[in-house]
């Protein structure tokens, strides 16, 4: 069925032409003096609201220790299977890692697969993985887009931690109901 577009006859002011031009100029002039709505990206960056889900990162506790124990729950929960972990054992003779036992040998997040859903942060029992403010990931190759363990810690840095789980374990070992 062809749809017939109704052509309304022009009003008097429209036929006079100039009132329409002036109305258009008024809009242009108003925007000339109004506040900018765009910004000069990437020199200027927008303020990121709290709770923003950016690039997933690994964080260290305030003592600079690795929090991740490679339980692989994030790997399990990740919907696009972007996370890949090889678990490893931490030797018991490392003094600052007393009672930790396990940590990731490798930890890769493929940012070409990541959908920024934040399930990894939600599932992490050690509060070791966070989606932080970083939102722009670029690279020239596919390999560049895979964040390895070193890159993840570099992006993540240190976050405040109220628990100090390993300190508690250490204190318990030293002062607790030892055998």
């Amino acid at each position, binding site marked *: 069925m062809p749809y017939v577009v109704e052509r309304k006859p022009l009003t008097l002011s429209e036929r006079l032409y100039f009132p329409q031009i002036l109305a258009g100029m008024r809009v242009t002039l108003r925007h000339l003096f109004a506040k900018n709505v765009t910004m000069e990206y990437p020199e200027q960056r927008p303020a990121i609201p709290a709770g923003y889900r950016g690039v997933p990162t690994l964080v260290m506790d305030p003592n600079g220790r690795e929090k991740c124990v490679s339980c692989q729950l994030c790997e399990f929960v990740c919907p696009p299977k972007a996370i890949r972990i090889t*678990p490893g054992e931490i030797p*018991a003779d490392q003094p600052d890692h007393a009672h930790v036992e396990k940590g990731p040998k490798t930890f890769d997040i493929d940012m070409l697969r990541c959908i920024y859903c934040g399930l990894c942060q939600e599932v992490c029992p050690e509060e070791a993985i966070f989606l932080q403010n970083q939102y722009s990931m670029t690279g020239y190759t596919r390999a560049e887009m895979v964040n390895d363990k070193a890159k993840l810690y570099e992006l993540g840095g240190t976050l405040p931690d109220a628990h100090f789980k390993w300190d508690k374990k250490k204190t*318990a070992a030293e*002062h*607790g*109901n030892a*055998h």
Partner: protein
Amino acid sequence: MISAPKPDLVTVNIDGREIAVPKGTNVIEAAKLLGVEIPHYCYHPKLTVAGNCRMCLIEMGLPAVDPATKAPIMDPATGKQRVNWMPRPQIGCGTNASPGLHIRTNSPLVKDCREGVTEMLLINHPLDCPICDQAGECMLQEHSTAYGRGYSRFVEQKNVKPKKTELGPRVTLDDERCILCSRCIRFSKEIAKDDVLGFIDRGSYSTLTCYPGRKLENNYSLNTVDICPVGALTSTDFRFKMRVWFLKETPGIDPESSVGANTTVSSREGVLYRITPRRNDEVNDTWMTDSGRALYKSVKAGNRLLTPTINGAATGADMALKAVRDLFTAGSVAVVGSGRSSVEEQFLTRKLADALKVSVSLVSRVGEGDQLLLSADRNPNVRGALVTGLISALPARKLTALAADIDAGKVKTVLTVGEDLTAAGLSAAQLAKVSVIYLGTHSNATSEAAKVVFPTLTVFEKSGTFVNQQFRIQKFAKAVPGPADVSDDLITLAELVAAAGGGIIPFELGALWAAIAAEVKPLATVTYANLPATGLLLDATPWAALPFIEGETLHYQPAGPAGATA
């Protein structure tokens, strides 16, 4: 251990539902028959009852009788015999079925008991599930979720115990996680007959330990890891390797010996991680050997054969097949089959020998049996060769007849399916006299000397069946894909049969089994698909007179004098 089912059935009432079970059946097992779970830690169907975890507490009642006249007391309201409920709960594992026994597994008292027991067990439990290898298959985790209170009231400090004690070469103990169920102790004493484990000290200081100067190093030590309801006993090999929820489980058969222990092969994305026993009450109960669990390592071994070769140079399968066809045309071929091949491969080996019009020799492997799950006959499938008609007499340990034939110049080509001819008594000089066609998984002296080599798959990379010492045919399935250039053993053998002029034989399991059923009488009704998971017992009478090299094992008694020699 549960006593064998006796004919006298008694009716018990569990949560208002009645079921007839053999007299003396454990209440946990009786409830399982009704689909009712009674949570438990220390109880294990194949071990004695210890009754120390107290998780299986139930309410129990018996029909009321008049003490003087022994007449049943009837309840006027219902018209049935009244039930006298005991005021205190009883443990389910220590309660046996008796006539008219009444059980409540979900009353408020029972629920309260379970919450209390769970809270008690969690008091000193470290709750390090994120790093615990048992997480995902941990009974404490499951029962705490299902029957626990859901929150902790404990504010004191937890006990600290050693986290990494090596009890033996393969077992590591995390003492903090132990809930003192004593399953491992009972297993070592009753099944492995190596009583090395025990508890020392009292109360919250109780610790599992080995007898001074001894180690948990018998060939069944890893079964303690399997039956540990928590992550206290862990396999040193599997420790921190992979979380169990990633593992794909495939049914397998232990190829170590003719016992044919049922296994579960766990893999993730084509990589094998561990082998654990699969329950089969007729073969291996819930146990298997440590040596059988280590076999998965052969899949990634450095000396794996990965491509067909001619005179040591890598080539394509078609070129290798062409070389074999020339050797077959020249005639004077001898075929050496294997008691390690599956029934399907042995059938195809027979077709190959038929096409070449020669008989097949097998090599027997004999080790020492341990009267449990490792038999003297270390070939998993000699019975399969008998059933398929590949051989009619038992194989010898050395290929003396073949050696004599080679020396006499009667044999120009030897085709061997997975058997190392050097190990089977042929000298290097004898091998040099003939052209060897070798089908095998790993390189050895024979593959080095072979003219043509076809790489084959390990037992984890193919599907098939073995016939064990009881003449029970059991199937195993492919757990991981084989290496890229290695075609399925059945394809290789079917192509060899075609090269020998034996016609086209299907190599796909379903169609191949139709051919096997048509030709092999004892297997007439069998297909790979319809084989039950616990195997199918074949009629062994045609071979009853053969002097099998077998001693007693867990569920097998040799027919003749025990330990008869070949």
